[in-house]
């Protein structure tokens, strides 16, 4: 057997693709997922609605199998899963659908300032429709203030929406506690689990979750597909966003994209098998990354709670260094400043602002997302590249200036 010499991490990689450290933005499709998807694009192309013939029926069976695979990962029943075009649609459907259904008796919607844009924009649309929308602040650690949330809830609150794991700062919200607060008051609890599904354990019953949004492309499945968990007992009722052919029990019309749904199902099935072990591995890599950066750049700050966060996420501020310059100085790394949806904006992240981070520090912040295909060597290379770039951008002497400028 050949054994390659270990390569020093700083060795130039002229022909290599940059190391991908943006797994919260999107993930590559796992080759195992792709393999399962491919036949459904070509020879098994039927419309799952065409149950009068064999092509349609085999597609329908594949969709139902995927539905069960997705349900298993969150302890739900298969028939509680509604397939959508992605987490943005799931979040729009959950918030607008639940609020509009209960409009007559409940007209109050509660969410957090740090939610994803598609939740905040859905809330804004409801506000224009006459709902009372309450957007609660978070602590400096990015976590919800449970006492503040409880105080905000009332008899006319229809739905509470809180993200399970944050896309920029990785923090994990106390879902079971929020769910309990909502359930006793008859309020629907929606959680945007696009970043959490398949990464951390979620149990819809134990956490009293009524609606839960899922994305395919955040868990090594394809883009263009997602799901919404809709509780049946007690029933979470929704007004659909898309009407038409009546697919998905009338909650979401439109031809079901069988290959994408099969891919989402397979990605969920892999997560059921591997999530625990993968989380352990990624946590070790994250700690290695953080320790490495801290050793080289002592002034670095971690945004978001250090313990209650996704195993694979870091959000780091490098005081005195512009994040854009830092990214430019690291051509071997694929990095981002935060949410990809707004990545092209020069504005500092509204999420970091909500944590009380100044705009100046916000502009010095990077999101690091590790994932299934990140190796220890990748981490070491990235830490060295970041440290070297910070050194170049700060100019010597590194240590004496750290923290002094801000």
């Amino acid at each position, binding site marked *: 057997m050949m054994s390659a010499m270990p390569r020093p991490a700083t060795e130039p990689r002229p022909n290599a693709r940059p190391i991908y450290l943006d797994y919260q933005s999107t993930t590559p499709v796992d080759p195992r997922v792709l393999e399962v998807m491919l036949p459904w694009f070509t020879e098994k192309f039927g419309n799952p*609605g065409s149950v009068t013939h064999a092509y349609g029926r085999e597609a329908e069976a594949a969709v139902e199998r995927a539905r069960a695979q997705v349900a298993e990962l969150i302890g739900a029943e298969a028939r509680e899963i509604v397939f959508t*075009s992605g987490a943005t649609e799931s979040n729009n459907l959950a918030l607008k659908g639940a609020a509009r259904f209960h409009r007559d008796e409940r007209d109050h919607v509660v969410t957090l300032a740090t939610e994803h844009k598609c939740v905040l924009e859905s809330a804004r649309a409801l506000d224009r429709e006459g709902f009372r929308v309450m957007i609660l602040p978070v602590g400096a650690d990015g976590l919800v203030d449970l006492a503040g949330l409880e105080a905000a809830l009332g008899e006319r609150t229809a739905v509470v929406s809180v993200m399970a794991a944050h896309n920029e700062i990785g923090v994990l919200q106390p879902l079971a506690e929020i769910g309990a607060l909502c359930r006793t008051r008859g309020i629907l609890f929606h959680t945007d689990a696009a970043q959490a599904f398949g990464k951390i354990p979620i149990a819809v019953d134990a956490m009293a979750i009524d609606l839960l949004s899922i994305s395919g492309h955040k868990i090594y499945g394809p883009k263009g597909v997602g799901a919404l968990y809709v509780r049946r007992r007690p029933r979470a009722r929704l007004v659909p966003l898309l009407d*038409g052919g009546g697919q998905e029990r009338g909650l979401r019309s439109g*031809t079901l994209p069988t290959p994408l749904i099969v891919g989402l199902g397979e990605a969920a099935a892999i997560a059921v098998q591997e999530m625990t072990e993968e989380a352990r591995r990624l946590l070790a890599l994250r700690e290695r990354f953080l320790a490495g950066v801290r050793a080289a750049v002592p002034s670095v700050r971690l945004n978001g709670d250090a313990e209650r966060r996704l195993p694979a996420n870091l959000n780091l501020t490098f005081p005195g260094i512009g994040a854009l310059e830092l990214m430019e100085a690291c051509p071997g790394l694929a990095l981002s400043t935060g949410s990809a949806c707004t990545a092209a904006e020069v504005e500092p992240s509204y999420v970091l602002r909500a944590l009380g981070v100044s705009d100046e520090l916000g502009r010095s912040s990077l999101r690091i997302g590790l994932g299934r295909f990140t190796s220890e060597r990748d981490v070491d290379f990235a830490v060295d590249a970041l440290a070297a770039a910070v050194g170049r951008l700060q100019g010597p002497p590194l240590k004496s200036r750290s923290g002094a400028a801000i």
Partner: protein
Amino acid sequence: MPPLAYLDWNATAPLRAEAAEAMAEALRRAGNPSSVHRWGRAARQAIERARAQVAGLVGAAPAEVIFTSGGTEANHLALRGVGDRRIFVSAIEHDSVREAAPEATTIPVTPEGVVDLAALETQLASDARPALVSIMLANNETGAIQPIAEAAAIARRHGALFHCDAIQGAGKIAVDFRGLGVDLLSISAHKLGGPQGVGALVAREGVALAALQRGGGQERGRRAGTENGPGIVGFGVAAELAVRESVSSAGIAELRDAAEAALSAVAPDARTFAKSAPRLPNTLCIAMSGVAASTQVMALDLAGIMVSAGAACSSGKVRRSHVLAAMGASPEEAESAIRVSLGRSTTPAEIEQLVDAWTALYRRTRSAAA
């Protein structure tokens, strides 16, 4: 087991091999098209290339193409995104149009399944409030092609916006966005050899459209959500191939006409819907009188032939077709109609298989009746 003959192309068309190949490659690459780094930029470039390809299919500018999750969403974005307007839809529209605007006024159609332009004129003249007219390019059940350019001209004269659901037409007949003079046009990828889960709304530059799905502001704020990059790439490839191969539809029409002639010869009492209307070259909607469509579909399925009893949408329920009802068909007639739809790889042998199985069923039911 008999050889399989897929004759349900209007429900979904098999993915083109070239599209599958391009998608498989795109699926192997990571990268969120909104990310600034090079993987993100590569994904963005692939989407913009596909946008130009899709625009090319209908003669629009790339910036006028908004990618959606499919035809249903494109239709909803058109009908619900134009703001507060009176809405007029034809009586034969797909459910995704009819249900997007449940309070719409219905424009009647002729017994041949073609929209009644005089009625549209009268309806629009009766009320001067801002309006939107939505008429499909070609009907999914009968294949009847609608006089879109004329209807759009009427709408324009009355200051109304015009939406055309071109989901069944695009890829089967030439579509000229500017020539038709429409403001909004819906397309679906999987009806023309692209993947399921992708579609587009083409919106003329200058038409104000409010997003239905809000969030990260993708598609210039008109449709939020991470773009389905590989799906869009597949859509683009299929669109380009449809443009290149548009000449080949003559062969499909010949096969369809042969099927129609053979079935009508066997069963002189069979009715072909929209027979004398301009029709999609691939679609045949025919009623075998006295035999339920579900019986025909099942008998044909046993013989390896896949057709449908109308639209494929709602989990197999065979409902009475609102399209055939609008054309004045009796309930008995509508309930005995099947849809046969051909595609680019349909062979004469498949048509022969259909004719044989249909003939056998016809003779069986007639001898049972006698």
